[in-house]
């Protein structure tokens, strides 16, 4: 990474840390936390959509699995957050592995439909396992991650600013791990299976192995987002993890620009803040929102961040990512 680029990254990071101080209204801080969680979801789904080239419509379900696992571990087993959080990630990744076994045999539309089916199953299970999940009524009384003492001051994650920093920390780790995963052998192998499974196999890339790896890592990260969410809102219900949520996350990836890490990140920020920014327009907000999404899809096949590409290399082919 060039000095120039790492300078920009450092400046951005400082800005991110200062955000809740500058915008001190709880409403803004709430949106920042939501954006952080959505970034984790979008960037992790971006591994599947952008690098494996498969559309998964079950990310909301994995998000929900993480949320319910973490919440139940803390409420039923009284585990502390520091245990519930990693266990939720592992359990969600394990579910990703189990679903990956049949689903990853498929590709293209068939894969998307298989994940759609799994999405439906998870919601049905959450609704019907009333003894465990309290069904459609949702789980309430979820504890927050707790509190700790810092130089004699008690910092509680029930407050928005500490929770924001917790979210930023998890988000940063997710971004860093994703960048490193993509930057080395693994990302190249994912791209190889996306571009040409037969060619990939011919030079020794095992498509099944790498597709599974990407899927498990991606779903485990969704589990992390779910855990954060449940200990932030302190109440979860199936409504937060249904198909609409999965489509919403997929939209972030596609609007932002798939095949990159920055794309889903930008997409998540846009789709979290845009509805709020449009709120002043009243009933018109959904129309404007829909219109913007349509315009992006029609005129920016590479997503919003495709604009930068376009500025950098005006001569590259426009339809690179269209297919």
């Amino acid at each position, binding site marked *: 990474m060039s000095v120039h680029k790492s300078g920009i990254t450092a400046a951005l990071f400082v800005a991110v840390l200062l955000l809740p101080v500058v915008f001190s209204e709880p409403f803004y801080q709430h949106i920042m936390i939501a954006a952080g969680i959505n970034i984790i979801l979008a960037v992790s789904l971006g591994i599947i959509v952008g690098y494996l080239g498969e559309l998964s419509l079950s990310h909301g379900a994995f998000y929900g699995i993480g949320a319910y696992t973490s919440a139940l571990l803390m409420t039923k087993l009284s585990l502390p957050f520091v245990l519930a959080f990693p266990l939720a990630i592992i359990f969600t990744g394990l579910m990703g592995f189990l679903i990956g076994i049949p689903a990853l045999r498929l590709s293209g539309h068939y894969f998307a439909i298989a994940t759609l089916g799994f999405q439906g199953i998870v919601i049905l299970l959450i609704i019907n396992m009333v003894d465990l999940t309290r069904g459609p009524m949702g789980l309430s009384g979820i504890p927050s991650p707790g509190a700790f003492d810092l130089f004699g001051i008690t910092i509680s994650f029930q407050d928005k600013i500490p929770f924001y920093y917790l979210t930023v920390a998890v988000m940063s780790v997710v971004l860093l791990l994703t960048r490193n995963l993509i930057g080395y*052998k693994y990302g190249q192998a994912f791209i190889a299976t996306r571009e040409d499974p037969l*060619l990939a196999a*011919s030079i020794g890339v095992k498509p099944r192995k790498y597709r599974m790896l990407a899927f498990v890592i991606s779903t485990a990260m969704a589990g992390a987002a779910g855990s954060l969410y449940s200990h932030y809102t302190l109440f979860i219900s199936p409504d937060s993890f249904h198909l609409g949520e999965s489509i919403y996350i997929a939209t972030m990836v596609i609007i932002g620009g798939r095949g990159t890490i920055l794309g889903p990140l930008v997409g998540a920020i846009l789709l979290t803040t845009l509805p709020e920014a449009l709120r002043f327009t009243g009933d018109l907000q959904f129309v404007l929102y829909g219109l913007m999404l349509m315009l992006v899809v029609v005129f920016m096949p590479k997503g919003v961040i495709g604009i930068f590409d376009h500025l950098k290399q005006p001569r590259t082919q426009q339809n690179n990512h269209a297919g």
Partner: protein
Amino acid sequence: MAFLSIDNISKSFGGLSANREITLSIKEHEIVSIIGPNGAGKTTLFNIITGVEPSDSGSVRFAGADITAMATPEIARLGLVRTFQQTKIFRDLTVVEAVMIGHHLHDRTGLLGAFLSNRFAREQRKKKLEIALEILEFIGMADRKDSITQNLPYGEQKLLNIAIALAAKPKLLLMDEPAAGMNPTESMRMMETIRRIKETGITVGLVEHNMRLVMNISERVFVLNYGELIAEGRPEEIRNNQKVVEVYLGRQSRAGA
């Protein structure tokens, strides 16, 4: 000692038999060509050797190992790599990135190392880049390293396909019609490239229609027709083989009559 030996391979698609009890072998460090009219079963044979399709019967051995039932990536790991008739390149990537992927098998980066972006991971990536550049130099495409693969002219896409395969460091490279659709200048360049690949110690198996190329560089030639092996020998023997001439030109008696 045979490096690659194909023993009694048969394969049929429905009623059509694409390979009928084919037995042939390739010795280490030679260039061997498989020729025959369209539909003779050449590509099917390559697919069976490299684990893309299963055979109905028979066995394939490579470098002392039975690879009949092995999957393509495992076969590649043993050092048997192929190129494709329909040129396959990783689209959307730069040329050097595509060739780097070819070196996948020799990149020993672990998942944890990658996650942590540790020194070993960085070294492995650097080594992979160096090898990719070396191969592009070798194949004469160093100046194209930053081009997007799908924007390359056809002839260079074919060369890139070979560069990707070479990056896997094969011991035996099977090429499926490397010169197909090339103009005479391009196919001369391809012939030179194949010869130089052989000089680096790689055994080469070709499926090719360009007779000038085949007769020029092959040490031995196998001829398939309707899925059957009808002749084998040195290029000059094949040229004068009555059966082969009939297959390609029709029967002399009829033609003369």
